[in-house]
Protein backbone atom coordinates (compact mmCIF):
# COMPACT_ATOMS: atom_id res chain seq x y z
CA UNK A 1 0.00 0.00 0.00
CA UNK A 2 3.07 2.23 0.02
CA UNK A 3 2.31 3.86 -3.34
CA UNK A 4 -1.30 4.41 -2.43
CA UNK A 5 -0.69 8.07 -1.79
CA UNK A 6 -2.24 9.15 -5.04
CA UNK A 7 0.78 8.66 -7.25
CA UNK A 8 -0.13 6.22 -9.96
CA UNK A 9 2.25 3.93 -11.72
CA UNK A 10 2.67 4.86 -15.36
CA UNK A 11 2.10 2.02 -17.80
CA UNK A 12 4.59 2.00 -20.68
CA UNK A 13 3.19 2.41 -24.18
CA UNK A 14 4.48 -0.98 -25.24
CA UNK A 15 2.81 -2.74 -22.32
CA UNK A 16 -0.35 -0.83 -22.97
CA UNK A 17 -0.39 -1.84 -26.64
CA UNK A 18 0.23 -5.46 -25.72
CA UNK A 19 -2.56 -5.37 -23.12
CA UNK A 20 -4.84 -3.72 -25.67
CA UNK A 21 -4.24 -6.47 -28.21
CA UNK A 22 -4.67 -9.13 -25.54
CA UNK A 23 -7.96 -7.53 -24.57
CA UNK A 24 -9.13 -7.66 -28.18
CA UNK A 25 -8.18 -11.31 -28.48
CA UNK A 26 -9.81 -12.14 -25.17
CA UNK A 27 -13.04 -10.33 -26.11
CA UNK A 28 -13.00 -11.98 -29.55
CA UNK A 29 -13.12 -15.44 -27.99
CA UNK A 30 -15.38 -14.42 -25.11
CA UNK A 31 -17.94 -13.26 -27.69
CA UNK A 32 -17.63 -16.58 -29.49
CA UNK A 33 -18.09 -18.38 -26.16
CA UNK A 34 -21.22 -16.37 -25.47
CA UNK A 35 -22.70 -17.43 -28.84
CA UNK A 36 -21.85 -21.06 -28.17
CA UNK A 37 -23.45 -20.96 -24.72
CA UNK A 38 -26.82 -20.05 -26.26
CA UNK A 39 -26.70 -22.45 -29.21
CA UNK A 40 -30.36 -22.32 -30.17
CA UNK A 41 -30.67 -18.54 -30.31
CA UNK A 42 -27.33 -18.19 -32.10
CA UNK A 43 -28.20 -20.86 -34.65
CA UNK A 44 -31.56 -19.26 -35.41
CA UNK A 45 -29.98 -15.87 -36.02
CA UNK A 46 -27.16 -17.31 -38.11
CA UNK A 47 -29.63 -19.32 -40.22
CA UNK A 48 -31.85 -16.30 -40.88
CA UNK A 49 -28.77 -14.34 -41.92
CA UNK A 50 -27.40 -17.24 -43.99
CA UNK A 51 -30.64 -17.70 -45.92
CA UNK A 52 -30.69 -13.98 -46.73
CA UNK A 53 -27.07 -14.05 -47.80
CA UNK A 54 -27.48 -17.27 -49.82
CA UNK A 55 -30.35 -15.67 -51.71
CA UNK A 56 -28.05 -12.84 -52.74
CA UNK A 57 -25.22 -15.28 -53.47
CA UNK A 58 -27.41 -17.54 -55.59
CA UNK A 59 -28.49 -14.65 -57.79
CA UNK A 60 -24.85 -13.79 -58.22
CA UNK A 61 -24.00 -17.36 -59.24
CA UNK A 62 -26.95 -17.43 -61.65
CA UNK A 63 -25.83 -14.25 -63.41
CA UNK A 64 -22.27 -15.49 -63.48
CA UNK A 65 -23.32 -18.72 -65.21
CA UNK A 66 -25.64 -17.08 -67.72
CA UNK A 67 -22.88 -14.60 -68.49
CA UNK A 68 -20.42 -17.41 -69.12
CA UNK A 69 -22.96 -19.07 -71.40
CA UNK A 70 -23.54 -15.90 -73.44
CA UNK A 71 -19.82 -15.18 -73.69
CA UNK A 72 -19.31 -18.55 -75.38
CA UNK A 73 -21.97 -17.55 -77.89
CA UNK A 74 -20.49 -14.17 -78.48
CA UNK A 75 -17.53 -15.55 -80.46
CA UNK A 76 -19.80 -16.17 -83.46
CA UNK A 77 -20.68 -13.40 -85.90
CA UNK A 78 -22.09 -15.99 -88.27
CA UNK A 79 -24.70 -15.00 -90.82
CA UNK A 80 -27.33 -17.49 -91.97
CA UNK A 81 -28.35 -17.04 -95.62
CA UNK A 82 -31.63 -18.80 -96.47
CA UNK A 83 -31.96 -19.48 -100.21
CA UNK A 84 -35.20 -19.54 -102.12
CA UNK A 85 -37.16 -22.80 -102.13
CA UNK A 86 -36.60 -23.21 -105.88
CA UNK A 87 -32.79 -23.17 -105.53
CA UNK A 88 -31.27 -26.68 -105.67
CA UNK A 89 -28.37 -28.02 -103.61
CA UNK A 90 -26.08 -27.77 -106.64
CA UNK A 91 -27.01 -24.14 -107.32
CA UNK A 92 -26.52 -23.44 -103.66
CA UNK A 93 -22.95 -24.81 -103.72
CA UNK A 94 -22.19 -22.64 -106.76
CA UNK A 95 -23.42 -19.58 -104.96
CA UNK A 96 -21.33 -20.53 -101.94
CA UNK A 97 -18.14 -20.55 -104.01
CA UNK A 98 -19.13 -17.19 -105.47
CA UNK A 99 -19.68 -15.67 -102.07
CA UNK A 100 -16.39 -17.07 -100.72
CA UNK A 101 -14.56 -14.76 -103.19
CA UNK A 102 -15.48 -11.85 -100.93
CA UNK A 103 -12.41 -10.89 -98.86
CA UNK A 104 -14.55 -10.14 -95.84
CA UNK A 105 -15.67 -13.74 -95.62
CA UNK A 106 -13.63 -16.54 -94.12
CA UNK A 107 -15.73 -19.58 -94.88
CA UNK A 108 -19.12 -20.59 -96.26
CA UNK A 109 -20.74 -23.86 -95.20
CA UNK A 110 -23.57 -25.29 -97.27
CA UNK A 111 -26.39 -27.06 -95.50
CA UNK A 112 -28.21 -29.04 -98.17
CA UNK A 113 -31.95 -29.66 -98.14
CA UNK A 114 -31.48 -33.26 -97.01
CA UNK A 115 -28.97 -32.29 -94.29
CA UNK A 116 -31.37 -29.69 -93.02
CA UNK A 117 -34.14 -32.25 -93.02
CA UNK A 118 -32.01 -34.79 -91.14
CA UNK A 119 -31.11 -32.23 -88.47
CA UNK A 120 -34.67 -31.12 -88.18
CA UNK A 121 -35.85 -34.71 -87.77
CA UNK A 122 -33.28 -35.36 -85.07
CA UNK A 123 -33.93 -32.32 -82.92
CA UNK A 124 -37.56 -31.46 -83.53
CA UNK A 125 -39.02 -34.80 -82.54
CA UNK A 126 -41.32 -34.71 -85.60
CA UNK A 127 -39.43 -37.61 -87.19
CA UNK A 128 -42.38 -39.82 -88.13
CA UNK A 129 -44.68 -36.95 -89.08
CA UNK A 130 -42.13 -35.53 -91.54
CA UNK A 131 -42.18 -38.78 -93.51
CA UNK A 132 -45.72 -37.94 -94.51
CA UNK A 133 -44.48 -34.96 -96.55
CA UNK A 134 -44.05 -35.90 -100.20
CA UNK A 135 -41.35 -33.30 -100.81
CA UNK A 136 -38.73 -31.57 -98.67
CA UNK A 137 -40.00 -28.09 -97.80
CA UNK A 138 -36.71 -26.90 -96.33
CA UNK A 139 -34.49 -24.46 -98.25
CA UNK A 140 -30.74 -24.66 -98.73
CA UNK A 141 -28.94 -22.62 -96.09
CA UNK A 142 -25.49 -21.08 -96.39
CA UNK A 143 -23.71 -20.48 -93.11
CA UNK A 144 -21.47 -17.52 -93.84
CA UNK A 145 -18.66 -16.85 -91.37
CA UNK A 146 -17.21 -13.35 -91.83
CA UNK A 147 -13.70 -12.30 -90.77
CA UNK A 148 -13.33 -12.47 -86.99
CA UNK A 149 -12.44 -8.76 -86.98
CA UNK A 150 -15.79 -7.94 -88.47
CA UNK A 151 -17.97 -7.51 -85.39
CA UNK A 152 -19.47 -4.03 -85.50
CA UNK A 153 -23.10 -3.86 -86.43
CA UNK A 154 -22.63 -1.33 -89.25
CA UNK A 155 -20.23 -3.35 -91.42
CA UNK A 156 -22.11 -6.59 -90.71
CA UNK A 157 -25.32 -4.97 -91.91
CA UNK A 158 -23.56 -3.73 -95.05
CA UNK A 159 -22.33 -7.27 -95.71
CA UNK A 160 -25.83 -8.64 -95.12
CA UNK A 161 -27.30 -6.17 -97.64
CA UNK A 162 -24.69 -7.33 -100.19
CA UNK A 163 -25.68 -10.96 -99.66
CA UNK A 164 -29.31 -10.09 -99.95
CA UNK A 165 -28.75 -8.72 -103.46
CA UNK A 166 -28.13 -12.21 -104.91
CA UNK A 167 -31.33 -13.29 -106.67
CA UNK A 168 -31.18 -16.80 -105.15
CA UNK A 169 -31.34 -15.43 -101.63
CA UNK A 170 -34.62 -15.44 -99.80
CA UNK A 171 -33.54 -13.80 -96.56
CA UNK A 172 -30.46 -13.18 -94.43
CA UNK A 173 -30.25 -13.45 -90.67
CA UNK A 174 -27.50 -12.32 -88.32
CA UNK A 175 -27.16 -14.88 -85.53
CA UNK A 176 -25.46 -12.28 -83.40
CA UNK A 177 -28.58 -10.20 -83.17
CA UNK A 178 -30.33 -12.45 -80.71
CA UNK A 179 -27.12 -12.78 -78.74
CA UNK A 180 -27.02 -9.03 -78.47
CA UNK A 181 -30.60 -9.05 -77.26
CA UNK A 182 -29.72 -11.74 -74.74
CA UNK A 183 -26.83 -9.63 -73.58
CA UNK A 184 -28.93 -6.56 -73.00
CA UNK A 185 -31.38 -8.69 -71.05
CA UNK A 186 -28.42 -9.97 -69.09
CA UNK A 187 -27.26 -6.44 -68.35
CA UNK A 188 -30.68 -5.64 -67.04
CA UNK A 189 -30.67 -8.81 -64.97
CA UNK A 190 -27.25 -7.94 -63.59
CA UNK A 191 -28.43 -4.49 -62.52
CA UNK A 192 -31.50 -6.00 -60.92
CA UNK A 193 -29.40 -8.51 -59.00
CA UNK A 194 -27.07 -5.76 -57.82
CA UNK A 195 -30.02 -3.77 -56.55
CA UNK A 196 -31.51 -6.81 -54.87
CA UNK A 197 -28.18 -7.68 -53.25
CA UNK A 198 -27.88 -4.18 -51.83
CA UNK A 199 -31.33 -4.60 -50.29
CA UNK A 200 -30.42 -8.01 -48.89
CA UNK A 201 -27.20 -6.51 -47.51
CA UNK A 202 -29.23 -3.86 -45.70
CA UNK A 203 -31.45 -6.64 -44.35
CA UNK A 204 -28.36 -8.39 -42.98
CA UNK A 205 -27.28 -5.15 -41.27
CA UNK A 206 -30.62 -4.76 -39.57
CA UNK A 207 -31.03 -8.41 -38.59
CA UNK A 208 -27.60 -8.30 -36.92
CA UNK A 209 -28.41 -4.91 -35.40
CA UNK A 210 -31.59 -6.20 -33.85
CA UNK A 211 -29.81 -9.22 -32.38
CA UNK A 212 -27.16 -6.95 -30.90
CA UNK A 213 -29.86 -4.67 -29.50
CA UNK A 214 -31.43 -7.58 -27.61
CA UNK A 215 -28.01 -8.67 -26.37
CA UNK A 216 -27.36 -5.11 -25.19
CA UNK A 217 -30.61 -5.12 -23.23
CA UNK A 218 -29.66 -8.39 -21.55
CA UNK A 219 -26.29 -7.00 -20.56
CA UNK A 220 -27.41 -3.53 -19.56
CA UNK A 221 -26.24 -3.93 -15.96
CA UNK A 222 -22.80 -5.00 -17.09
CA UNK A 223 -22.51 -1.95 -19.36
CA UNK A 224 -23.53 0.35 -16.50
CA UNK A 225 -21.01 -1.11 -14.10
CA UNK A 226 -18.21 -0.98 -16.67
CA UNK A 227 -19.00 2.69 -17.34
CA UNK A 228 -18.99 3.42 -13.59
CA UNK A 229 -15.49 2.07 -13.17
CA UNK A 230 -14.18 4.14 -16.07
CA UNK A 231 -14.80 2.16 -19.25
CA UNK A 232 -14.68 4.14 -22.49
CA UNK A 233 -17.29 3.82 -25.23
CA UNK A 234 -14.86 1.70 -27.26
CA UNK A 235 -14.29 -0.71 -24.39
CA UNK A 236 -17.97 -1.17 -23.69
CA UNK A 237 -18.92 -1.71 -27.32
CA UNK A 238 -16.08 -4.12 -28.09
CA UNK A 239 -17.78 -7.39 -27.08
CA UNK A 240 -20.89 -6.45 -29.05
CA UNK A 241 -18.92 -5.55 -32.16
CA UNK A 242 -17.21 -8.93 -31.96
CA UNK A 243 -20.59 -10.64 -31.60
CA UNK A 244 -21.56 -8.90 -34.86
CA UNK A 245 -18.29 -10.08 -36.36
CA UNK A 246 -18.97 -13.73 -35.50
CA UNK A 247 -22.61 -13.61 -36.61
CA UNK A 248 -21.53 -12.17 -39.97
CA UNK A 249 -18.67 -14.61 -40.39
CA UNK A 250 -20.70 -17.72 -39.57
CA UNK A 251 -23.65 -16.66 -41.69
CA UNK A 252 -21.23 -16.22 -44.61
CA UNK A 253 -19.89 -19.75 -44.07
CA UNK A 254 -23.36 -21.29 -43.80
CA UNK A 255 -24.50 -19.31 -46.87
CA UNK A 256 -21.59 -20.78 -48.82
CA UNK A 257 -22.75 -24.28 -47.88
CA UNK A 258 -26.32 -23.45 -48.95
CA UNK A 259 -25.22 -21.97 -52.30
CA UNK A 260 -22.96 -24.93 -53.03
CA UNK A 261 -25.79 -27.33 -52.15
CA UNK A 262 -28.11 -25.47 -54.56
CA UNK A 263 -25.57 -25.72 -57.41
CA UNK A 264 -24.96 -29.41 -56.70
CA UNK A 265 -28.68 -29.98 -56.74
CA UNK A 266 -29.05 -28.23 -60.13
CA UNK A 267 -25.84 -29.47 -61.73
CA UNK A 268 -27.27 -32.79 -63.07
CA UNK A 269 -30.31 -31.30 -64.86
CA UNK A 270 -28.32 -28.35 -66.24
CA UNK A 271 -25.62 -30.55 -67.72
CA UNK A 272 -28.24 -32.87 -69.20
CA UNK A 273 -29.93 -29.88 -70.81
CA UNK A 274 -26.58 -28.65 -72.11
CA UNK A 275 -25.89 -32.03 -73.73
CA UNK A 276 -29.24 -31.91 -75.50
CA UNK A 277 -28.12 -28.69 -77.16
CA UNK A 278 -24.71 -30.12 -78.01
CA UNK A 279 -23.26 -27.60 -75.60
CA UNK A 280 -20.25 -27.98 -73.38
CA UNK A 281 -21.68 -25.86 -70.66
CA UNK A 282 -19.85 -26.37 -67.40
CA UNK A 283 -21.67 -25.00 -64.37
CA UNK A 284 -19.56 -22.54 -62.34
CA UNK A 285 -19.24 -22.72 -58.54
CA UNK A 286 -18.07 -19.97 -56.20
CA UNK A 287 -14.31 -19.71 -56.56
CA UNK A 288 -11.82 -19.29 -53.73
CA UNK A 289 -11.65 -15.51 -54.06
CA UNK A 290 -15.42 -15.30 -54.28
CA UNK A 291 -15.80 -17.42 -51.16
CA UNK A 292 -13.40 -15.14 -49.35
CA UNK A 293 -15.33 -12.12 -50.61
CA UNK A 294 -18.63 -13.67 -49.50
CA UNK A 295 -17.50 -14.28 -45.92
CA UNK A 296 -15.63 -10.98 -45.91
CA UNK A 297 -18.70 -9.02 -46.95
CA UNK A 298 -21.01 -10.76 -44.46
CA UNK A 299 -18.47 -10.19 -41.68
CA UNK A 300 -18.24 -6.49 -42.50
CA UNK A 301 -22.05 -6.26 -42.65
CA UNK A 302 -22.28 -7.96 -39.24
CA UNK A 303 -19.85 -5.47 -37.72
CA UNK A 304 -21.70 -2.61 -39.40
CA UNK A 305 -25.01 -3.86 -38.00
CA UNK A 306 -23.53 -3.91 -34.50
CA UNK A 307 -22.11 -0.42 -34.92
CA UNK A 308 -25.32 1.12 -36.15
CA UNK A 309 -27.15 -0.05 -33.04
CA UNK A 310 -24.33 0.61 -30.57
CA UNK A 311 -23.81 4.14 -31.81
CA UNK A 312 -27.27 5.17 -30.65
CA UNK A 313 -28.18 2.72 -27.91
CA UNK A 314 -24.95 2.78 -25.97
CA UNK A 315 -25.19 6.55 -25.46
CA UNK A 316 -28.52 6.03 -23.80
CA UNK A 317 -27.22 3.58 -21.21
CA UNK A 318 -25.78 5.93 -18.61
CA UNK A 319 -25.30 5.40 -14.89
CA UNK A 320 -27.80 7.48 -12.90
Amino acid at each position, binding site marked *: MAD*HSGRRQK*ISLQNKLYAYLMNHLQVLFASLGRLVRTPFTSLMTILVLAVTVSLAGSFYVLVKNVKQFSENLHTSNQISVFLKQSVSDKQGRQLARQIEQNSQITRVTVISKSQAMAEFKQYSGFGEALKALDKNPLPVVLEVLPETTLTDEGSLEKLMAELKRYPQVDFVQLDMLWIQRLQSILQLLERGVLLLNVLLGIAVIFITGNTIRLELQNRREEV*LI*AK*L*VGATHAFVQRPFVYTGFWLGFFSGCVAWVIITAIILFLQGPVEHLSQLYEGHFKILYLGFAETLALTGITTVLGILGAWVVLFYQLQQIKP*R
Partner: protein
Amino acid sequence: MLTFDHVSKRYPDAGDALLDVSFHLARGEMAFLTGHSGAGKSTLLKLIAMMEKCSRGHVLLEGQNLNRVKERQVPFIRRKLGLIFQDYKLLLDRTVFDNVALPLVISGYSQYDISRRVRAALDKVGLLGQEKKYPLALSGGEQQRVGIARAVVNKPRLILADEPTGNLDPELSVEVMHLFEQFQQVGVTVLIASHDIELIKQMGYRVLTLSHGRLVGGQ
Protein backbone atom coordinates in the same frame (compact mmCIF):
# COMPACT_ATOMS: atom_id res chain seq x y z
CA MET B 1 -8.53 17.36 -3.41
CA LEU B 2 -12.22 18.08 -3.73
CA THR B 3 -13.96 21.45 -3.66
CA PHE B 4 -17.66 22.31 -3.90
CA ASP B 5 -18.11 25.97 -4.73
CA HIS B 6 -21.72 27.20 -4.30
CA VAL B 7 -23.09 24.11 -5.97
CA SER B 8 -26.79 23.71 -6.69
CA LYS B 9 -28.54 20.87 -8.46
CA ARG B 10 -32.09 21.17 -9.65
CA TYR B 11 -34.02 18.33 -11.25
CA PRO B 12 -36.68 19.47 -13.68
CA ASP B 13 -39.39 17.34 -12.08
CA ALA B 14 -38.19 16.97 -8.47
CA GLY B 15 -36.96 20.48 -7.67
CA ASP B 16 -33.76 21.38 -5.84
CA ALA B 17 -31.70 18.43 -4.67
CA LEU B 18 -28.74 20.56 -3.59
CA LEU B 19 -28.72 24.28 -2.74
CA ASP B 20 -25.61 26.42 -2.53
CA VAL B 21 -23.35 23.71 -1.16
CA SER B 22 -19.73 24.71 -0.47
CA PHE B 23 -17.01 22.68 1.24
CA HIS B 24 -13.46 21.51 0.73
CA LEU B 25 -11.89 18.10 1.35
CA ALA B 26 -8.13 18.09 1.81
CA ARG B 27 -5.92 15.40 0.32
CA GLY B 28 -5.87 12.36 2.60
CA GLU B 29 -8.88 13.51 4.60
CA MET B 30 -11.69 11.19 5.66
CA ALA B 31 -15.20 12.58 6.05
CA PHE B 32 -18.77 11.41 6.44
CA LEU B 33 -21.73 12.78 4.59
CA THR B 34 -25.00 12.43 6.43
CA GLY B 35 -28.57 13.62 6.47
CA HIS B 36 -32.12 12.29 6.28
CA SER B 37 -33.05 10.27 3.22
CA GLY B 38 -33.66 12.61 0.30
CA ALA B 39 -31.36 15.26 1.79
CA GLY B 40 -29.11 15.10 -1.28
CA LYS B 41 -26.33 12.72 -0.21
CA SER B 42 -26.52 10.57 -3.33
CA THR B 43 -26.87 13.60 -5.59
CA LEU B 44 -23.70 15.09 -4.13
CA LEU B 45 -21.76 11.88 -4.80
CA LYS B 46 -23.19 11.63 -8.31
CA LEU B 47 -21.87 15.09 -9.13
CA ILE B 48 -18.36 13.94 -8.22
CA ALA B 49 -18.69 10.66 -10.15
CA MET B 50 -19.99 12.65 -13.15
CA MET B 51 -23.25 10.77 -13.24
CA GLU B 52 -24.90 14.19 -13.06
CA LYS B 53 -23.80 17.74 -13.76
CA CYS B 54 -24.54 20.57 -11.37
CA SER B 55 -26.99 23.32 -12.35
CA ARG B 56 -25.00 26.12 -10.69
CA GLY B 57 -21.59 26.52 -9.08
CA HIS B 58 -18.46 24.45 -9.60
CA VAL B 59 -17.17 21.06 -8.54
CA LEU B 60 -13.38 20.85 -8.59
CA LEU B 61 -11.56 17.54 -8.44
CA GLU B 62 -7.82 18.00 -7.97
CA GLY B 63 -8.26 21.51 -9.32
CA GLN B 64 -10.09 20.30 -12.46
CA ASN B 65 -13.50 21.87 -13.01
CA LEU B 66 -15.88 19.01 -13.70
CA ASN B 67 -18.32 21.33 -15.50
CA ARG B 68 -15.78 21.69 -18.27
CA VAL B 69 -15.06 17.99 -18.70
CA LYS B 70 -16.17 16.68 -22.07
CA GLU B 71 -18.22 13.51 -22.42
CA ARG B 72 -15.23 11.68 -23.92
CA GLN B 73 -13.08 12.44 -20.86
CA VAL B 74 -15.60 11.21 -18.29
CA PRO B 75 -14.16 7.65 -18.18
CA PHE B 76 -10.73 9.03 -17.35
CA ILE B 77 -12.11 11.12 -14.48
CA ARG B 78 -13.89 8.04 -13.12
CA ARG B 79 -10.64 6.09 -13.16
CA LYS B 80 -9.32 8.47 -10.48
CA LEU B 81 -12.19 7.49 -8.22
CA GLY B 82 -13.07 4.37 -6.29
CA LEU B 83 -16.83 4.01 -6.13
CA ILE B 84 -18.60 1.84 -3.58
CA PHE B 85 -22.36 1.23 -3.64
CA GLN B 86 -24.96 0.08 -1.17
CA ASP B 87 -26.06 -2.68 -3.56
CA TYR B 88 -22.41 -3.59 -4.38
CA LYS B 89 -23.03 -3.55 -8.17
CA LEU B 90 -21.07 -6.72 -8.85
CA LEU B 91 -21.24 -8.71 -12.09
CA LEU B 92 -22.98 -11.87 -10.92
CA ASP B 93 -21.84 -13.99 -13.87
CA ARG B 94 -18.17 -13.23 -13.26
CA THR B 95 -15.87 -14.56 -10.59
CA VAL B 96 -14.63 -12.47 -7.67
CA PHE B 97 -11.29 -12.18 -9.47
CA ASP B 98 -12.86 -10.89 -12.70
CA ASN B 99 -15.01 -8.41 -10.80
CA VAL B 100 -12.06 -6.92 -8.98
CA ALA B 101 -9.93 -7.00 -12.15
CA LEU B 102 -12.44 -5.00 -14.23
CA PRO B 103 -11.01 -1.50 -13.58
CA LEU B 104 -7.51 -2.78 -14.39
CA VAL B 105 -8.63 -4.47 -17.60
CA ILE B 106 -10.31 -1.22 -18.60
CA SER B 107 -7.17 0.78 -17.87
CA GLY B 108 -5.07 -1.62 -19.93
CA TYR B 109 -2.85 -3.37 -17.38
CA SER B 110 -0.94 -6.52 -18.29
CA GLN B 111 -2.18 -9.91 -17.11
CA TYR B 112 0.74 -10.12 -14.71
CA ASP B 113 0.01 -6.74 -13.12
CA ILE B 114 -3.69 -7.50 -12.95
CA SER B 115 -3.13 -10.79 -11.20
CA ARG B 116 -0.72 -9.24 -8.70
CA ARG B 117 -2.89 -6.23 -7.92
CA VAL B 118 -6.15 -8.14 -7.64
CA ARG B 119 -4.57 -10.51 -5.13
CA ALA B 120 -3.18 -7.59 -3.14
CA ALA B 121 -6.60 -5.89 -3.06
CA LEU B 122 -8.37 -9.09 -2.04
CA ASP B 123 -5.77 -9.68 0.64
CA LYS B 124 -6.43 -6.18 1.94
CA VAL B 125 -10.15 -6.87 2.37
CA GLY B 126 -9.55 -10.37 3.76
CA LEU B 127 -10.86 -12.35 0.79
CA LEU B 128 -7.68 -13.91 -0.53
CA GLY B 129 -8.42 -17.44 -1.69
CA GLN B 130 -11.97 -16.65 -2.75
CA GLU B 131 -11.01 -15.45 -6.26
CA LYS B 132 -12.70 -18.27 -8.12
CA LYS B 133 -16.05 -17.96 -6.34
CA TYR B 134 -19.04 -16.17 -7.82
CA PRO B 135 -20.53 -13.21 -5.90
CA LEU B 136 -23.76 -15.02 -5.03
CA ALA B 137 -21.76 -17.71 -3.22
CA LEU B 138 -20.59 -15.03 -0.77
CA SER B 139 -22.34 -13.36 2.17
CA GLY B 140 -23.51 -9.74 1.98
CA GLY B 141 -20.51 -8.52 3.95
CA GLU B 142 -18.15 -10.44 1.70
CA GLN B 143 -19.81 -9.08 -1.43
CA GLN B 144 -19.39 -5.55 -0.13
CA ARG B 145 -15.72 -6.27 0.49
CA VAL B 146 -15.40 -7.47 -3.12
CA GLY B 147 -16.91 -4.11 -4.11
CA ILE B 148 -14.35 -2.32 -1.95
CA ALA B 149 -11.50 -4.36 -3.42
CA ARG B 150 -12.68 -3.37 -6.90
CA ALA B 151 -12.81 0.29 -5.82
CA VAL B 152 -9.24 0.33 -4.49
CA VAL B 153 -7.52 -1.98 -6.96
CA ASN B 154 -6.72 0.88 -9.36
CA LYS B 155 -5.22 2.90 -6.47
CA PRO B 156 -7.72 5.76 -6.65
CA ARG B 157 -7.04 9.19 -5.18
CA LEU B 158 -10.57 9.52 -3.85
CA ILE B 159 -12.91 6.84 -2.53
CA LEU B 160 -16.63 7.62 -2.64
CA ALA B 161 -18.93 5.26 -0.77
CA ASP B 162 -22.72 5.54 -0.93
CA GLU B 163 -24.28 3.85 2.13
CA PRO B 164 -21.64 1.12 2.11
CA THR B 165 -22.98 -0.40 5.34
CA GLY B 166 -26.66 -0.03 4.45
CA ASN B 167 -27.17 -3.75 4.00
CA LEU B 168 -24.80 -4.96 6.69
CA ASP B 169 -25.28 -5.80 10.38
CA PRO B 170 -23.61 -3.49 12.98
CA GLU B 171 -20.60 -5.72 13.52
CA LEU B 172 -19.79 -6.00 9.81
CA SER B 173 -20.42 -2.26 9.43
CA VAL B 174 -17.72 -1.45 11.94
CA GLU B 175 -15.35 -3.79 10.15
CA VAL B 176 -16.00 -2.09 6.81
CA MET B 177 -15.50 1.36 8.35
CA HIS B 178 -12.16 0.30 9.77
CA LEU B 179 -11.19 -0.84 6.31
CA PHE B 180 -11.87 2.67 4.98
CA GLU B 181 -9.83 4.04 7.87
CA GLN B 182 -6.88 1.97 6.71
CA PHE B 183 -7.08 3.42 3.22
CA GLN B 184 -7.20 6.92 4.65
CA GLN B 185 -4.12 6.17 6.69
CA VAL B 186 -2.09 5.52 3.53
CA GLY B 187 -3.13 8.83 2.01
CA VAL B 188 -6.37 8.20 0.14
CA THR B 189 -9.14 10.77 0.49
CA VAL B 190 -12.37 9.09 1.63
CA LEU B 191 -15.93 10.43 1.54
CA ILE B 192 -18.65 8.16 2.93
CA ALA B 193 -22.37 8.86 2.69
CA SER B 194 -24.22 7.20 5.54
CA HIS B 195 -27.18 7.80 7.78
CA ASP B 196 -25.90 5.52 10.54
CA ILE B 197 -25.36 8.41 13.00
CA GLU B 198 -24.26 6.16 15.87
CA LEU B 199 -21.50 4.56 13.84
CA ILE B 200 -20.35 7.91 12.43
CA LYS B 201 -20.07 9.44 15.91
CA GLN B 202 -18.10 6.42 17.07
CA MET B 203 -15.57 6.89 14.27
CA GLY B 204 -14.85 10.52 15.16
CA TYR B 205 -14.16 12.05 11.74
CA ARG B 206 -15.45 15.21 10.10
CA VAL B 207 -19.18 15.03 9.38
CA LEU B 208 -20.86 16.97 6.56
CA THR B 209 -24.58 17.20 7.29
CA LEU B 210 -27.13 17.84 4.57
CA SER B 211 -30.70 18.92 5.24
CA HIS B 212 -33.13 19.53 2.37
CA GLY B 213 -30.24 20.07 -0.02
CA ARG B 214 -28.38 22.55 2.18
CA LEU B 215 -25.15 21.88 4.02
CA VAL B 216 -25.94 22.55 7.69
CA GLY B 217 -22.85 21.22 9.42
CA GLY B 218 -19.24 20.31 8.83
CA GLN B 219 -18.22 23.10 6.40
